[in-house]
């Protein structure tokens, strides 16, 4: 395969080459790992790389293709032999899973998350675990307990978060595709800021078994990919009922690729005016308006609508999510796994372990959640937020009575510089304006690249009713085919510049940080 850089290809392009026996899964893996070596000094997307396990999986896939009988049938094993990165909050048996936290710096899970076992069963090759905001709490990956990840489009800019490592590495071709998790926008926002496709599925569509819990009524795992087709393929592999997750929905999973290559004539598109007003950067708004015009040109019927309780969504989310997190993170006590500090008593041991192991944002949210749930405040804060959540959910129900999908910017701004928002939690939270209501309502939503502002990518968010992921694929794919944003590549991918200085917000904590493993070159 002279001239073709395998690491630049999408999963479906690689699949076509594998089926024609043009390349082998081992060549694909070598190409990706070779590129990771060039990228990582400046990008820092991975906490752990697993070249040996990956090599073994790729070797098996190579043999299967070589003797033909073991190769997947057309339409089956969509990711057979394809390298994938996993956000470091999903358990991988035998591979360290830190959740971006020093409290789990040495945790090696004894089992696979359901999404991971489904990927392995499909034949995907897991290449590493990506950096993230600690316990997925953050919008910039600066809350990682280990180091910052950078945006491949601009030196010193954040990749978004919390799935910043997954989005940055897919954008820079350091993985063919990746998994992220999304509690308030953590798949869609980094996908938007890095110029890739990110999907938060309907709550309950993808099993959360083996995902380190943050806010259990909001968390969902979702794909981060180079294009819409790959997103459909990856969702098809990970979606579906799982008896190990009691919030997993007993629904039949359709073939999502059947929703691609369709036209969108007559599709009713609503633009919630609350997502296009104050708080949205005017340049971002202009780019999104241009994207809406493209869809109109393709035959979509566009009209404005209103989600009147949007203004209450941030306050609602930042009560519910911290309340759930304060309860979920009680399990990190220094007894069964992770960091352990000696103490005079059990309480002393737990408090010292948690004090040492948790970073500032995690402590802030545990404090906020504990406060909101504590006696005397419960009704005023938590119970009130649960009712506000009902009103936000009903806004969407009403809108979907008139529209097939809703459109908005994914993030109110393009990528910002590291350190810019770390001292102002409310400013950081405000960046989740357009994504948070979707989690509160449990809806599926996708971010697709729709242009640039100041040289940085802008994402278009498409929202659909529960379990109508198919509509997202139809609209996003129609838009993707009508535009050509993927022809623009991030600077870091084209030529590796010098490593950015670590900004003040993200300090390398040598000593207890996991070793940043890079594979030996295999030529």
């Amino acid at each position, binding site marked *: 395969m002279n001239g073709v850089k395998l690491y630049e290809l999408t999963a479906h392009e690689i699949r076509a080459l594998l089926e024609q026996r043009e390349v082998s899964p081992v060549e694909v893996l070598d190409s990706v790992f070779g590129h990771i070596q060039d990228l990582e000094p400046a990008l820092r997307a991975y906490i752990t790389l697993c070249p040996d396990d990956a090599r073994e999986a790729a070797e098996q896939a190579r043999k299967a293709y070589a003797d033909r009988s073991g190769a997947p049938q057309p339409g089956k094993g969509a990711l057979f032999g394809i390298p994938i990165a996993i956000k470091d909050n999903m358990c991988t048996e035998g591979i360290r899973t830190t959740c971006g936290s020093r409290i789990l710096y040495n945790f090696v899970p004894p089992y696979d998350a359901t999404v991971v076992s489904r990927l392995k069963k499909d034949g995907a090759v897991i290449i590493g675990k990506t950096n993230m905001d600690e316990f997925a709490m953050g919008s910039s990956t600066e809350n990682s307990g280990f180091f910052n990840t950078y945006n491949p489009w601009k030196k010193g800019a954040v990749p978004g978060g919390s799935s910043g490592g997954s989005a940055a590495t897919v954008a820079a071709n350091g993985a063919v595709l990746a998994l992220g998790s999304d509690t308030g926008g953590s798949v869609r926002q980094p996908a938007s800021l890095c110029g890739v496709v990110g999907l938060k599925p309907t709550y309950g569509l993808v099993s959360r078994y083996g995902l380190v819990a943050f806010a259990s009524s909001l968390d969902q795992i979702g794909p981060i990919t180079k294009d819409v087709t790959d997103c459909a393929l990856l969702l098809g592999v990970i979606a579906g009922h799982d*008896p190990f997750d009691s919030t997993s929905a007993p629904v039949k999973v359709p073939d999502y690729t059947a929703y691609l290559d369709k036209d969108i004539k007559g599709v009713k598109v609503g633009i919630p005016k609350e997502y296009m007003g104050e708080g949205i950067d005017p340049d971002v708004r202009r780019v999104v308006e241009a994207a809406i015009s493209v869809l109109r040109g393709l035959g979509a019927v566009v009209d404005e609508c209103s989600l009147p309780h949007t203004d209450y969504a941030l*306050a609602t989310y930042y009560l519910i999510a911290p309340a759930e997190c304060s309860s979920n993170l009680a399990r990190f006590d220094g007894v069964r796994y992770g960091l352990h500090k000696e103490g005079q008593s059990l309480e002393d041991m737990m408090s010292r372990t948690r004090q040492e192991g948790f970073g*500032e944002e995690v402590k802030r949210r545990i404090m906020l959640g504990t406060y909101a749930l504590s006696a005397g405040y419960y009704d005023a804060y938590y*119970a009130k937020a649960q*009712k506000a959540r009902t009103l936000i959910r009903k806004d969407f129900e009403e809108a979907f009575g008139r529209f097939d999908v809703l459109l908005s910017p994914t993030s109110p701004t393009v990528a910002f510089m590291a350190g810019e928002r770390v001292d102002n939690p409310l400013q950081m939270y405000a960046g989740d304006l357009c994504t948070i209501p979707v989690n509160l309502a449990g809806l599926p939503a996708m971010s697709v690249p729709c242009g640039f502002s100041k040289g940085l990518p802008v994402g278009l968010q498409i929202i659909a009713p529960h379990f109508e992921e198919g509509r997202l694929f139809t609209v996003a794919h129609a838009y993707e085919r009508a535009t050509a944003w993927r022809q623009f590549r991030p600077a870091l991918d084209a030529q590796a510049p010098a490593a950015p200085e670590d900004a003040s917000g993200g300090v390398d904590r040598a000593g207890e940080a996991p070793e940043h493993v890079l594979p030996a070159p295999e030529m």
Partner: protein
Amino acid sequence: MRIDREEVLRIARLAHLELAPDEVARFTEQLDTILNYMEKLRGLDTQGVEPTYHALQDLANVFRQDKVGEVLPIEKALANSPEREANFFKVPRIVEERG
């Protein structure tokens, strides 16, 4: 002030966090700002509105047969324990010896 230093210390104790002095000062200020922002919810009329605990309204409690399935072997379950003794996780003494 919606929250003061004493309250922050009380919450930290409830959450098993041994905050450093500078964190107590910073969190007091930041939590106060955040809680002030949350006040906007007070202005929202929620009379007669049912709470949403879960986004999928038609998903009820899930039960299964009380039958032992595949279980984690003891060695695997204990593999990450910072301190163990025989087949147990070891913690500091909780019950004092009688004098």
